[in-house]
Every structure is written in C-alpha cells, then in structure tokens.
C-alpha cells in the first residue's frame, strides 16, 4: 500500500484487475446463487417438502386440513365450507346428517390458532377460481371487535401456518401485511427462504425419517376420517358461576387450579383502550376474502361464535366495526348476532372458549338450518 501512485495509472490498473477478476469471480457467484435458488426452489417452493411435513406441526396441520379438503369429492357447487379458528364449532358430520332437509354439503377447515389472514390464503388455495362453494362461513368472536393486547396484525405464527402455501408472488403483499417493521422483513425473508422456516421440522425429519414417513402416510390415508368423526369434548363447566359485574368466577370444588386459572385469564383478560386496531385488521382481511369472491356468486356468511360459558354483558354496538361495515356488501350475509346466545351455557362449554360435544352438536344443527334459511334451496 505504500508505493506512490499516479492516480490515473492506479485507477487503470485497478479497473483492469477488477475486470480480470470479475471474469472468473462473477460466474462462480452467479453459479452459487443459481444452485442455491434451485435447491431451495425445488425442495421447498414446490410440493416436495410440504408432502413430508410433520402432520401435527403448525404448517403440517394446515397442510393436512387443506389437502383433505382439496381431495374431498365435490359433486356439485352446493358445498358450504367453514373456515376459522378452534372456536368454529361446526361438526360437518352433524350438519351433513341434515343434508336431506338442507340440501347442502358441509365441510370445515377450522384450525386452532389460525387467523383471518390465514383464512384468506386458505380460501385462495382451496378455491382458486372462486367457483367451488355455494357459501363460505367465517366466524368472528365479537361484532364489536374490541382490541386486545395480542395484535393479530403481528401474529408471526401465521407465517408458519401458511409457509407451504406462500408463493414468491406473495412477497409483494404478504410480508407487508404485518404491522411491525421488523416482522415485515422476517416474513419477507421467510417467504423467500422457506427452508429457514422448516428448519425444526427438517431436523426432526432427519432424526426420525422412517417414522415421519409412516406418520405422514397414515395421516394422508386416515386423517380426513378422524376429523370428520370428531365428536368434541365431553366434560363441561357445569356449576361455574360468573359475576361479570365484579369479574369474579365461583368454581365448583371439582375444578382444578389450572382450570380456574385458565377461566379467569380468558374471561377477565384486561384489554387496552379500543383504538380500532382489530377492526382495521379485520376490515383488510375480510376485504381480501370479499374481493376474491366478488361477483362469483359464492355467499360469505359471517356469524358470531358463542362467546362464553355465561352470556357476557353487551356493550353498546360499535357501528364502524369491520363486520358491520361489510354487512351491506353484495353476497355478504351476517347472521343474527344473537343467534347462538342460547348456547352460552356452562353445561355446553368445555373450557372458557370452546363448546362441549353437545354444544358443538347443537351449534352445527342450528348453523346448518340457518344456512339453509339464508341461502335458500340449493341449485340443482
């Protein structure tokens, strides 16, 4: 570095050496990128790796649900599909028992922990042409959409749920749908480099490859039947008393400390002042679903799930909530807010959020009948 340099000679030599180096270096860097993209693309951006995902993992559970629904024979368009989280209590078996009277065939891809953002991508995958279903049932917890400390806009678990279904074209919008700036980039990187998201699953696969393949095969073969035959939990919260005015629960002696803690945590959870965050989020994702089905003839049926083991106090209605705003859109049907209030009973709830087997049975029958009522007779 010490020798005196004539600026022009130095620059020429530098450019000369740079050009000479580039001839050898650039093709190798390019080859690295091409090979990496090819490995990553072939294994993770196709259906190869998703086909061996652990069926009980977040991404695997989503894949199982979607694959089962894709494989389910659909003889006509009189199909009604429910999306949703674990509180979507529709039992397709029960609803389908009423098919002679309703005329519709019901199915559910409800998945615990999934969010409206997931539901949009699920529907895009299940119904790319928006012509497969007569109606889509979408649950909501509360028509007033109060904000909570768990901002759904930043639910990073959504990336794991959806990873197998995200495409490179989703880089343009999926990552940016997160509120947090850091999370946007995490989602961007994860969508691009899917192998990174599959890391734990991949290491688990390496550890138990044979067992995994056997489990995946079994799931492929039987899981649709397992889900269809699921009956719901038997135990209930019968005997529980809730004083909503003072946020106090009175428990029967048989309740375990863990049960009591869960009930108090869920039912009396503190909430931040409502800033309309959840409504904005729902407005965006309901809007995306609506846009997907706009003009297709598929009805979007929104309902309020049974909220709690005892009817909670009713605050004044929030008129600018997302659900109330889209209610006036064509092809949107919002079921009566109080339709399922009769199920808000301690003997029909298994825990503070979910219905018992009996509750799910009643819910399914009520929903099937209501869907028939709002849709009218099926098209032949």
């Amino acid at each position, binding site marked *: 570095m010490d020798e005196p340099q004539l600026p022009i000679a130095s620059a020429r030599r530098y450019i000369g*050496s740079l050009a000479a180096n580039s001839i050898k270096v650039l093709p*190798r860097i*390019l*080859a690295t990128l*091409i090979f990496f993209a090819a*490995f990553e693309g072939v294994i993770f951006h196709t259906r190869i790796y998703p086909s061996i995902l652990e069926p009980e993992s977040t991404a695997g559970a989503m894949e199982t649900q979607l694959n089962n629904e894709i494989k389910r024979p659909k003889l006509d368009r009189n199909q009604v599909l429910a999306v949703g989280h674990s509180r979507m209590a529709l039992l397709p078996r029960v609803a389908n028992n009423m098919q002679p009277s309703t005329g519709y065939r019901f199915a559910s891809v409800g998945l615990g922990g999934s969010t409206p953002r997931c539901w949009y991508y699920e529907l895009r995958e299940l119904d790319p042409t928006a012509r497969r279903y007569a109606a889509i049932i979408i649950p909501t917890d509360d028509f007033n959409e109060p904000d909570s400390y768990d901002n759904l806009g930043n639910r990073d678990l959504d990336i794991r749920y959806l990873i197998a279904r995200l495409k490179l074209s989703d880089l343009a919008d999926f990552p940016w749908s997160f509120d947090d700036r850091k999370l946007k980039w995490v989602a961007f990187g994860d969508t691009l480099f899917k*192998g990174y998201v599959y890391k734990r699953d991949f290491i688990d696969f390496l550890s138990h490859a044979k067992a995994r393949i056997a489990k995946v095969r079994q799931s492929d073969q039987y899981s649709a039947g397992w889900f269809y035959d699921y009956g719901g939990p038997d135990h209930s919260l019968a005997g529980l008393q809730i004083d909503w005015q003072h946020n106090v629960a009175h428990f029967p002696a048989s309740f375990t400390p863990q049960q009591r803690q869960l009930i108090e945590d869920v039912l009396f959870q503190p909430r931040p002042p409502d800033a309309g965050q959840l409504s904005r989020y729902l407005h965006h994702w309901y809007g995306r679903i609506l846009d997907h089905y706009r003009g297709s003839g598929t009805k979007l049926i929104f309902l309020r799930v049974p909220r709690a083991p005892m009817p909670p106090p009713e605050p004044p209605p929030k008129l600018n909530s997302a659900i109330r705003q889209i209610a006036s859109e064509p092809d949107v049907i919002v079921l009566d807010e109080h339709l399922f209030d009769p199920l808000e009973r301690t003997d029909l709830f298994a825990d503070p959020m979910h219905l018992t087997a009996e509750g799910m049975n009643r819910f399914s029958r009520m929903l099937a009948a209501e869907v028939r009522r709002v849709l009218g007779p099926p098209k032949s």
Partner: protein
Amino acid sequence: MLFNTPQFFAFLAVVLIAFYCSPRSWRRIILLAASYFFYMSWIPKFILLLLALTVIDYTAARWIARTESPRSRKIALIVSLSANLGLLGFFKYYNFFAVNIAHLLGKPEGSFALSIILPLGISFHTFQSMSYVIDVYRGEQKPIVNLIDYALYISFFPQLVAGPIVRAREFFGDLYHWQAPNSAEVLRGLLLVILGLAKKMVMADQFAQVANNYFKDVAGHPGLLAAWSGVVAFGIQIYFDFSGYTDMAIGMALLLGFHFPINFRRPYLASSITDFWHRWHMSLSRWLRDYLYIPLGGNRHGRLMTYRNLMLTMLLGGLWHGASWNFVVWGGYHGALLSIERMLGLKRAPEENRWTSFYPIRAIFTFALVMIGWVFFRAANFHDSIYVLQQMFTGNIGSMFLMRWQIDLALITLLLAFLEEKKAWFERIAIGPAWAYGAVCALLLLSVELIGYTEAAVPFVYFQF
C-alpha cells in the same frame, strides 16, 4: 458484533466497499477505523486499553531499535512485556489467584475477588504484540515507523478476537507490498467465509446444544454412552467453532488482500498427540514454540530438560486458555502425553504411510486421548471432570446423547476431512469450474439455512479466551 450475525455481514460489506472504493492511501485508515468500530461494538471503554498497549509496544519497539545500550533495550523489552502480561494477568488471572489465595488463607472464596470483565481478544492481541516486540529485540523485525500501521496490526478486525496469531513480518509483508487479491484469492476467501459460517452454525452450534445439555448436569446423565457422546459433542463443537472462526478470519483477510497462516489442519485425523499439535491452533503452537519452548532450551539440553520444557510450555499453554486449574490440568495432560511420545520415540506418521493399516488405529487412539483431554477443558470443575472420566471408563452403558442425524452429520464431515487430507478437494473446488464452486457454496449455504442453529447467535468459544 459476532461473525455469525447479519449485522457483521452488513459491516463487512460496508468495509469492503469503502476499502476498494477509496484511494490507496486511505485504505489502512479505513481498516483501522473499521477495526476500532468492531472492537468498540462490544464494550467501547476497552478501546482505551487497546490504544494504551498499542502506544506502549510501538514506543518500546522504536526505543529498542534506536538505542545501542543492551540495558536500555532490555528495559524497553521488560516494560513492554510487563504491560502486556500485567494487563493480561490482571484481567484474566486476578480472580483465579484471588480465589486460590482466599482458599489457602481459609477465607470465603470471594474475599479478594473483583468483578472483572475480560476485554475482547486480550489473549490474542497481547501475544501478537509481545511477538512483535521480542522480534524487534532479537533483530528479526524492523520497528514499524507508522503508528497507524502498527495499530492496524494489533487491531485488524478479522483476527482481533480469536486469532490466528499473526507474526509481524507476515502482516507487514502484506501491508507494505499490498496487492489486490486475484480471482483465485477472492474465490478462496468467499468459500472460506461460507465454509467457516457453516462450520460454526451447522456443526459447532448444533453440537454445542448436546455438550451443554450433558455438561450442565453430568451427574444427572450417568453412563458410558452419555459421557462419551457428551465429550465427543464438545470435541466436535470446539473444533468446528474455532476452525470456523479461523476460516472466516482467513477468508475475510484474503478478500482484503492479506494472507493469514492456516490455524487448523484436520487435527482429529492426527496420528499422535505430537501430530495433533502440528494441526491444532497452529499459530498458538508456533508462538509457544518460538517464544517459550525454544527460549527455555527446547530439546537442546538433554532428555529430561526437553520433557521439562514440554511440560512447562504446555502448562502455560493450558493456562493461556483460561484461569482455572482445569486448564492447567489439560495443559499438563498434553505436556505429559507429548513427553511420553518423545520418550517412546513416537513420531508423526509420515504422509506416505498415512493409509497403512496402523494409521486408523493410531488416529482413533489419538482421537480418544484428545477427547479425554477435553473433559478437563469443558467440565465446570475438577470434581465434574473426574466424574465424567469415571463414567467414560467404568460407568454403565447409559443412553446416547447424540441423535442419529448428528452422528450421520459427524460421519459425513469425517469423510470430507479424509477426502481433503487425501485429495485436497477444498483447494480444487476453490479453483475449479464455476458449477462445482457454485454447487458447493450453495450446499453450504443451504446447510446453514436448514440445519444451522439460529435460535440465538452463539458466541465463539475462543472469544472467552
């Protein structure tokens, strides 16, 4: 700022761009500024320590070269060595001695202890400084006139934290006759950075999980298999951690036009402990040989003195790794093995005999001896070390800590090491066709993506030394 973080790669990209886009006369200043920034990204105030040592050693070397008086030269040397060893001793060994003195006096352990944070890379940069001043004193190195050049030698960020320990003549040879790296060097540098990252994240950090689980509660995991798998996991961790760091350091230096000596040459394929030390942390071995073993007399004064010198060198080498009796025992263990090998006349297996029938047995035996040594290196205390050794040799079978995929991964790397030893595949790929280079780099990157431990950026093991 750890090498295995996105922040570091962003920093490296900025440094490379700034370095190559600026006039040559600015480049060493850019490197020095980058190195100081890198050092200060940890605990900024310790930069004062680095600056103080830089000025002391720079001045001492200049003084040694300028004065004719042997006494003055010696005083300058002693001042420099005292400053380096004093600071190293205080930061690294004060609490070790304080605890032992308290123990001897029957006082509580913490009676004289201080809350001391070990400055980053102090063991490495002090050894580098000392080698420079000693070389100047011996007349083997001209004193550096430009303080910035000398400061860069001491603080050059690729090797500041954990080596390799670069000799002054190697570094200044590159600095004063700097040439832009040619395409082969750029490609080798890039490949080394990627390989080092893969070694660290895929091998070291994954096996660290196994080793940490075992060593955090050795009594909770009795049995022969548990002990061996825990110890082997640590052996894999420490090798891949340190050699991964070194590969990245050598690679980054190459990208900047500097040539560092290699620090590891597949040490677990060594055919004897003597061979192991010719392959493990070679720059430290070289330093200990040139500045400790040979000045002590080396092998020039008979057998007994040679064994003594070997033991002293290895004991101090052990203590260099950390302030604990465990490291002293580890050093003493290796010193004893080296002495025994010398006593038995065991030499390194000649390269041409490497694949004879005895080599695998010798290599496996050496590997087992090295693993036994790691017990002292890794165990929390001497009591745990003895317990683990008991389990390794007298325990029940117990259960294996390593999972199947980890064993497979270790076997694949062993195969790659054999191929490198025999066929030098790494060198071939670095200068090979674009498709081979691209495929290997892509596979390494894919392994980082898929298997690399990314729950947290795990610090390099040798950072604590």
